[in-house]
């Protein structure tokens, strides 16, 4: 093989590798994007059924209850306009409490209950999860535009 031919082989091999990597990245990305929906959007039916997404807002006061097995909990997430019930099996994060911000990841069941596989709370008492804050802000903006 000539020097040019060798170089070409090398470049082609590198390109093939890069192309493969890109294809891999794009397909994995498409499958694993987790969208965020506010409780209002979920209530309006804008959230997908049967696909994992995130929901966030405040944990509604007085909504946290523990099922008889002791490990499964129910609570409601609200953006102050709409409230969505959530069920979760497992230990809640340290900073999870009523009246505080939380983000849950999971799927919406056909009964309208959000089945969470993961619950994230804020990790410092000073800060809200960005997504939870976003949900509340949106709902309040919507509310203020409705007012006369």
């Amino acid at each position, binding site marked *: 093989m000539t*020097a040019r031919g*060798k170089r070409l*082989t*090398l470049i082609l*091999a*590198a390109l093939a*590798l*890069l192309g493969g*990597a890109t294809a*891999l*990245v794009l397909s*994995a*990305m498409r*499958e*694993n*994007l*987790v*969208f*965020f929906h506010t409780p209002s959007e979920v209530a309006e039916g804008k959230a997908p059924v049967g696909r*994992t997404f*995130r929901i966030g807002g405040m944990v509604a006061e007085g909504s946290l209850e*523990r099922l008889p*097995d*002791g*490990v499964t909990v129910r609570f409601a997430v609200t953006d102050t306009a709409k409230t969505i019930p959530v069920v979760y*099996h*497992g*230990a*809640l994060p*340290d*900073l999870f409490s009523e009246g505080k911000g939380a*983000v849950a990841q999971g799927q919406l069941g056909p009964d309208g209950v959000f089945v969470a596989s993961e619950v*994230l709370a804020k*990790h*410092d*008492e000073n*800060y809200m*999860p*960005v*997504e939870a804050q*976003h949900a509340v802000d949106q709902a309040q903006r919507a509310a203020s535009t409705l007012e006369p």
Partner: protein
Amino acid sequence: MIPEMGQFALALAWALALVQAVLGLAGAARGSAGAMAAARRAALAQFAALVLAYACLTAAFLRIDFSVLLVAEHSSTRTPWFYRLTGVWGNHEGSMLLWSLALAGWQAAVAAFSRTLTASFRARVLGVLGAVSVGFLVFLILTSNPFERLVPMPAEGRDLNPLLQDPGMIIHPPLLYMGYVGMAVAFAFAIAALLSGRMDAAWARWSRPWTLVAWVFLTLGILVGSAWAYYELGWGGWWFWDPVENASLMPWLVGTALLHSLIVTEKRGAFRSWTVLLAIGAFSLSLLGTFLVRSGVITSVPAFATDPTRGVFSLGLLALTVGVSLLLFAWRAPRLSGGGAFAPVSREGSLLVNNVLMAAAAGAVLLGTVYPLIIDALQGAKLSVGPPYFEKVFVPLMIPAVVLMALAPFLRWKRDVLSRVLRRVLPEMIGALIIAALGVWATDHVTVGAFLGIALTAWVVLASLRLLVDRLRQGAASGMTARLRGIPGSWWGMWLSHLGVGVFILGVTLVGALEQRLDVKMMPGQEAELAGYRFVLRGVSEVPGPNYTAQRGAVEVWREGRMLTVLAPEKRAYFRSAMPMTESAIDWGVFRDVYVSLGDPTGDGGWVVLLFYKPFISWIWFGAVLIALGGVAAALDRRYRRLARRTAAVSVSEPPHEPAAEAVR
């Protein structure tokens, strides 16, 4: 008075950095020996000023001076002294000060230990580092002043974030910052090479030990961070593909590529522009990491300091750094072309593939990490990229990289024949497949992932042993010890790090395949079973701590009728912050960890208890330690010091001009 002194020292450091940048770069351009010597002294003085500033802040913390806002917000009278000491960097302002101190420390090290560099090259390196320092100190002084006063002074402080009140957190940030900032040295060497147009084997020899040390710090920083997440967050995971973790992984991946690219630049003079690009990339990703962690744009675990204006500032700094260096690269890089030609199947070829894979992996992680930010900025849509994305992308890229990693050291430089090499290591390859088959059979866990993981580990270990045996056979010296001693440090470094990767993969594979978890409600006296272990909750009692009250469980761990240990997981309530904290309890072992953490009380006297069985998780840490040890061994290679002595002798007799060119051969 002390905080004002710190403030003054900070301003002084900024001025010195500016002097260092200007005199260093201009002095080198004009060949002024006086200016270059002054730049060197400015670097040492800048370090002294930052040590003083840092000492002032530490003094404010130790003296519990609540008239300083930072102290009042991140410590309390009840905080133990060592957490007040570490509280200095347990917040945004202090950690940025630590960043700057680390940067100045690297500059002082370059100023002090670079007798082998030509005066003009050293001045350029110090000039570039000084410019980076100027940027960071402006950021620190304008947006994040650590010495801000608080009037009126409160009687009690708000205490340190409980997550950070942990020994792991004492060493994690300094290690990580030393790594991040150390990449600035590699960056400065690359920029200095672009400026001077000089980039030869001697350059690679200068640059490589610095890059190695930075990379070792980064490796250890990531390791400690991961171990901390494992035992402190109470979820039993060791890697979450969290943006903050990705922020440290990306410069590590590019730094790894850089280390390998530097080998080719040193030995064969090739890959020069690519090496420069990787050095720019590694440092830019370190800056991006700082931006991601410090801007609070993402819902993430340890991003405890969040402020968008700072984010904008650091993003500006990042854009400036990347922009200027890439412009310089586009302008000057054509001068750097050249180097030895090589065939696709050769040591160079294999290192090229390694580089492409590492860079692709870093790119994929980068995409997954910033994609949500970009979409948010462009469309206002909130979304996140789940961990499965990272696993799906990262693992397929790493599999060929690891296969090649063990094979590449058998390849010859310039040109080799693939069939020759494959025939040579055929026994090891077959052995790896047999071991993997036995492994999945023995663990009764027949999955592709487990098979591949065990096969990769076995392949890496067997090939490494073969490599050592071959190397010892080759040696000209008689006697085994003489031959062992004849092997250079960089070879041992490669060997240890590669072996470490194998050990690491085994840990990841086995803990992934065989771990078990049980979330269970337990009443005192009740028991639960997991993976052949029997757990008995004896009770939960209240225990006072210095700045918290803990609910401490007593959990007996039994196996085969014998009690192994009593674990004491805690749920702590810190006084000053309404924040509960889970302290998990772990029975560490070489072959398995048994991990217990307390969830929530169920209201009727019971507790939700999390039980984990984590086989081989320690091997993840062992592997990472081996990888880091390899870096240390390579940095200690005699040839870097031999070079130092030779060129010192040369520069006495001659003006500093192209030293060590002869030392390369």
